[in-house]
């Protein structure tokens, strides 16, 4: 934080110093939140007890609890949290491409909500490049399109999904755009914007192009 050096000294001496009002929170240097242990969380410890071998670790950051869950147990863990701990609402489901990593290339992230006390909980499961994840569409209906999006963008296959099709790109699109090795500028999909050969009835008329050829 280089601009910190520019802050004036707190005591510039003289009579002005005592009149200086105390610093407001927005004038202070921002302090980022720190990571803490999340295993003491009520729901995480209940999940660890109920579904054996599910919780691998838990983290608390910026007031949010994130539990790492074993891939094979994820659907089971979600079902338990919904049915026994009343996390009735799946807010978000997405994935992260972590590149080369020991636990597996991707993280699939589940972010759920409980209405009784307005609590939110995040589950993260590590998935290898060629591994599949059990679907949670049977737990929350809303997971359907979210999982389709993750499949489309990352190529992660959800086992047991009723309709695992691409959703934002088209069927037959080659690649998964949000993978880190997918180029930002895009790929040549073979679908030319201005094709040389137009299908019958489409494209510019013969008269329009004829003049240009002659010139």
């Amino acid at each position: 934080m280089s601009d910190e050096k520019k802050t004036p000294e707190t005591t510039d001496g003289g009579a002005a110093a005592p009149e200086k009002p105390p610093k407001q929170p927005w004038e202070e240097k921002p302090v980022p939140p720190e990571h803490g242990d999340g295993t003491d969380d009520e729901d995480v410890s209940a999940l660890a007890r109920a579904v054996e071998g599910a919780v691998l670790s838990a983290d608390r950051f910026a007031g949010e609890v994130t539990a790492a869950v074993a891939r094979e147990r994820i659907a089971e863990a979600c079902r338990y949290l919904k049915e026994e701990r009343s996390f009735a609402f799946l807010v978000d489901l997405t994935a992260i491409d972590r590149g080369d990593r020991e636990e597996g290339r991707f993280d699939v992230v589940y972010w759920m909500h409980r209405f009784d006390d307005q609590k939110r909980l995040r589950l993260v499961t590590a998935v290898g490049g060629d591994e599949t994840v059990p679907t949670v569409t049977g737990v929350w209906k809303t997971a359907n399109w979210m999982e389709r999006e993750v499949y489309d963008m990352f190529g992660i296959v959800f086992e047991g999904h009723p309709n695992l099709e691409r959703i934002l790109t088209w069927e037959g699109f080659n690649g998964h755009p949000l993978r880190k090795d997918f180029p930002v500028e895009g790929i040549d999909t073979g679908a030319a914007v201005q094709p040389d050969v137009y299908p019958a009835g489409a494209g510019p008329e013969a008269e329009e192009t004829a003049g240009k050829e002659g010139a």
Partner: protein
Amino acid sequence: MAGPLEPLFDLEEMELSFGPQHPSTHGVLRVMLRLDGEKVMEAKPIIGYLHRGTEKLFEQETFTQCIPHTDRLDYIAAPTNNQGFVLAVEKLLGITVPPRASYIRMILAELGRISSHLLWLATHAIDLGAITPFFYTFREREIILDLFEEYCGARLTLNAMRVGGVPFELPDGWVEKCSAFIDEFPSHIDEYETLLTENRIWKKRTVGIGVISAEEAIDWGLTGPPLRGSGVKWDIRKVFPYDRYDEVEFEVPIGQAGDTYDRYLVRMEEMRQSARIIRQCLDRLPEGPVMAKVPKVLRAPEGMVYASVEAPKGELGYFLVTTAKGTKPYRCHVRPPSFINLQALPEMVKGSLVADLVAVIGTLDIVLGEIDR
């Protein structure tokens, strides 16, 4: 004489592609329909025509450079999009926003909500054959867009918030103009309501159409007016108050039947409540800076945060993942309310008429820029 009668026409079910170029799909949305006569047997939304890879672009740009991209998600209500993103970054960096900046943000966000609901009302009414409300709502929407333009120079893609506050002080006379508008606006809502609320045709087209129960709505992940129309009193501004929403008073209107008419009533009341919030913000607008002391280069700690706002369409969330000392998001996922609300469309229109499909698409209030990202 006995014997089966020859049918006069083909009784087979028909496949119909509704959209992507249809005025009542509110953008490039395509719905594949399986019809039995005029009855919808199955509807399958096909989306992605407006996909621009926004989430990929987020990964290439610094936190501040990301903000203009958020404008283009729900382009009808840009302030809430900006707000969600800056709140996520502020949460990640531990920044406290000065109260004046918070209040300006709330004023802009609520003006955005009114503007979004006015556009929704205009297009929804046109879809159902009522053309007149359009002229009235756009009259008021114009004033809001003028206020936006005066504040930041843009009318739709505002880019009006920064990490740590807002970029500009309010221009001279802005508060008075906004105040005058807010004073007279509730009477305009009454005007719209005289056109529609007790209108027999409007009720025939909306009462009992696109019904979804509270349990189903939660299971499908609906948020915003579609959830509240089903009787769930749930609003991010109340549940997880961001900025200074805990300092203002407002009600969260809910419906009962979960049909198109109740969602209409919910949104009409929300506009009144937004006006009420703006009134309080203008009256109490604190003095002070509009930007917190923020480092010039934003460097995030390693971690993941989620911050959400109550956008006009529902819960708009930003999920940010960062690496240690990262100046760019490692991954930024948007939870778009329209995307998830649209998912319930097949459920809501099953067995209804094609004309009701138009009503249900209208009542979900979708924006394709946000769905396709």
